């Protein structure tokens, strides 16, 4: 009886397992059931237009066409394919290089080249850019891409109700409908104040379809199903499906202009989300994924040694630093901050933590940038003797023999260095600093906090409850540290360090003016030197970006512009397809 019952139960369970695993939420053909009426109306149009385009533009008889490429990394594209609300790096890359188009792109020397805009003119007084759009670009539901789309995207991006994540792009642009004019179907004019590197936002901002989104109130754009359930773009790849926290699947856009290369070579692009880096490495080594984005430095060796993989590494735009809250008495004196940096052996940290895959940072300017000046380290080498001297000079002396310095008022040179839970590198940085600073009479205590809590303590004006914190930052190609160091922004969220330095203020204002790179360079050199003197942060390093690629994927170019900069040109070796 029990036995029969047990068998019965077991067989029912087996049937349930088979049923659940076979279904797994997918319909045949790969499109997830659209749960929303917006998506239900949009997706069939995309399907029929793409089918029509596929018939009109048969794939050339070139063996490079075909195959599936699988990219794996830890981050989900949480904000989806909507450039007006997306703040995470992965989402923006997939908008700019896969699903949608930006007006311009950068070539490998970071100079603008045409993309959606086939040409552009700048007025002699630097207050107007006129973009001339391509005439052969279609949204994937069949509607032509026109100047109206650009105007719509610009108006929404500059509208405060949208809460566009990068409002600093538009600091010197004329915002709202007054800033953009549609001259005809393919000509659009943008109004701005003269400024440096004004083309950079157009390299990053993907243009959105007006005909699908213009009826959505700006403050509801963030919640719209378009973003993650049925995005429609005009770029080389068409959205196929998205299973949350699992994968995104894209297919080729048969309508992509032939002049720009036509449809991509691969038949399918799959982006898999795998939160654990050891699993990612295993998947790369066993063929579960073809490309592993953001390999950890200690995994780099295994990727290099594997016979069928190659390691791509390049200097990138993000850097790690410790931000010092200069509002605290112990950290108010720049001499103390400079001494801290001199007491830290940053070279050794780069070697041991990054296995050499990185460059020491002395400012916010990355080493590959045209404004970078290696000598602007400003004389802050690793020198504990000099550090001690500087501290004594600033009045911090160990008066009571407890190994920790005090100032004349008796305040101890002791503080905490916070870092967020879950990031081993940052924890290592904090602990190494503790050990090294102890040698010069500073008591630094590492303290771990949950990420959102820590972030809250840094960005809340009036409640900046931290002394030092290990943080990371991604520079844009247009470097603008106004949010970080300008005293006019001292009560805004990003003024973590509380810097109030008139020379820096002047330089930041001057550097925002438009001028040639040749003229700007001496200013940048001066800026880097002054920043070193002020030391609002102890800059640590620019880690190299590491990516692992299976050799069956050919023509992969990855550099500071993006890991995905030429995804439409990747092709799979026909002999190695599965």
């Amino acid at each position: 009886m029990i036995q029969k019952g047990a068998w019965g139960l077991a067989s029912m369970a087996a049937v349930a397992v088979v049923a659940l695993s076979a279904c797994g939420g997918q319909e045949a053909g790969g499109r997830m059931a659209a749960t929303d009426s917006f998506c239900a109306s949009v997706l069939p149009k995309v399907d029929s237009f793409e089918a029509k385009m596929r018939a009109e533009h048969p794939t050339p008889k070139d063996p490079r066409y075909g195959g599936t490429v699988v990219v794996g990394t830890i981050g989900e594209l949480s904000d989806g394919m909507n450039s007006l609300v997306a703040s995470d790096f992965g989402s923006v890359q997939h908008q700019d290089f896969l699903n949608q188009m930006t007006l311009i792109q950068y070539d490998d020397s970071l100079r603008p080249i045409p993309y959606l805009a086939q040409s552009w003119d700048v007025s002699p007084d630097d207050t107007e850019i006129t973009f001339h759009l391509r005439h052969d670009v279609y949204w994937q539901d069949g509607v032509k891409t026109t100047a109206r789309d650009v105007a719509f995207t610009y108006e929404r991006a500059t509208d405060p109700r949208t809460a566009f994540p990068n409002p600093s792009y538009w600091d010197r642009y004329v915002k709202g409908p007054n800033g953009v004019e549609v001259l005809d179907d393919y000509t659009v004019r943008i109004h701005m104040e003269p400024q440096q590197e004004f083309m950079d936002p157009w390299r990053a901002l993907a243009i959105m379809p007006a005909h699908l989104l213009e009826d959505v109130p700006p403050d509801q754009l963030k919640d719209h199903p378009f973003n993650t359930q049925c995005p429609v773009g005009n770029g080389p790849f068409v959205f196929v499906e998205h299973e949350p926290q699992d994968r995104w699947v894209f297919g080729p856009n048969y309508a992509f202009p032939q002049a720009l290369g036509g449809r991509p070579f691969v038949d399918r692009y799959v982006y898999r989300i795998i939160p654990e880096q050891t699993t990612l490495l295993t998947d790369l080594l066993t063929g579960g994924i073809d490309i592993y984005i953001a390999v950890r430095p200690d995994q780099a060796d295994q990727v290099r040694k594997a016979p069928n993989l190659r390691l791509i590494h390049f200097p990138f735009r993000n850097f790690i630093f410790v931000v010092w809250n200069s509002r605290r008495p112990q950290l108010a004196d720049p001499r103390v901050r400079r001494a801290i940096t001199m007491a830290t052996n940053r070279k050794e940290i780069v070697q041991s933590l990054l296995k050499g895959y990185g460059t020491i940072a002395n400012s916010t300017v990355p080493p590959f940038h045209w404004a970078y000046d290696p000598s602007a380290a400003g004389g802050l080498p690793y020198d504990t003797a000099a550090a001690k001297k500087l501290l004594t000079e600033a009045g911090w002396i160990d008066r009571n023999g407890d190994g920790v310095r005090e100032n004349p008022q008796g305040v101890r040179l002791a503080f905490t260095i916070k870092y967020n839970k879950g990031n081993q590198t940052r924890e290592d940085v904090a602990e190494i600093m503790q050990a090294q600073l102890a040698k010069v009479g500073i008591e630094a205590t590492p303290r771990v906090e949950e990420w959102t809590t820590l972030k809250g303590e840094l960005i809340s004006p009036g409640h900046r409850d931290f002394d030092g914190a290990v943080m990371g930052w991604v520079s844009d190609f247009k470097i603008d540290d106004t949010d970080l160091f300008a005293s006019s922004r001292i009560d805004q969220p990003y003024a973590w360090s509380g810097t109030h330095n008139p020379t820096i203020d002047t330089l930041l204002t001057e550097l925002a003016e438009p001028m040639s790179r040749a003229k700007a360079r001496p200013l940048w050199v001066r800026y880097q030197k002054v920043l070193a003197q002020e030391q609002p942060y102890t800059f640590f390093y620019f880690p190299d970006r590491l990516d692992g690629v299976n050799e069956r994927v050919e023509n992969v170019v990855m550099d500071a512009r993006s890991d995905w900069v030429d995804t439409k040109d990747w092709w799979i070796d026909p002999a190695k397809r599965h």
Partner: protein
Amino acid sequence: MRRYVVRRLLGAIPLILGIATLVFFVVNLAPGDPAQYLLSRGMSAGVLAQMRHNFGLDQPLLVRYLKWMGSLLTGNLGYSYSYDRPVLDVLLTFLPNTLLLSGCALLLAFLVGMVLGTVQAVRQHSALDSGVSVVLLFFYSMPSFWLALMMILIFSLWARNVWHWPLWFPASGMHAASADLMSGGERLRDALMHLVLPVTSLTLLLTAGIARYMRGSMLEVVRQDFIRTARAKGLPERSVIFKHALRNALLPIITLLGLYIPLLFSGTVFIEYVFAWPGMGKTIVDAIGTRDYPLVMGGSLLFATMVVLGNLLADILYAVVDPRIRHD
């Protein structure tokens, strides 16, 4: 019995609402909020305020609580900030994945655990008993994270690249990248292959406890007089153990079942992280990190309900299995 069940169910409602209230206040009083989480460069305090307004966070806490309670009572769990979808949709997307993983693991763990426990009890003090104890204790003490990584290392990486076994398992995910292009039979095989390592890891972790309880309970039962009578009657040993003793030894197992049923819905975070299994555990933990209040509260509500129902199920099963227990 029926009255008992009805009474328990009615009593569960204020309990679940009370838990929901507690969760609401704990989550909302934690430092940080979703707007802060999403803050990125160039955003001024004004943009932050706008985002807070868009999320409805600028209203007083009590007002938000009452609004949430109100919508709850009409069956609306709210809108997830991080998924841009209704909370119920999000939960229903991930629930089948967790059901599949936890369901298989629980089923296997109970079967294997009960068999092992019985065998150990019957062969107490033998080498087999000690051997099984050692192995079980080994797996019980192992951190789930490490066990999962070891499984991947051995049966995925080494099996394929180093030892070149004919059978090796995929390292992560629920199905292959091109699963939707496969035929039905291939797709099923692919899904089962992806199921093996995560289920085995979870089963190994759960079995030890169940086996231990089973062993102890069986030992106690097997010493009783009625077992001696059954043997004296000349019944085959198999009948004695599996028909007479087992049924009486089941009470602690049912307790465990009641405690483990919520696992079907809460999932196990570490296993899901390591195997990239899109399940409930990881979803809710991530939601806490991003301060996705509606999703955290919806998920917590779901777990609370499952815990209450799981306990109720266990209590009912006691009465079914043991006629001495009467509910009224």
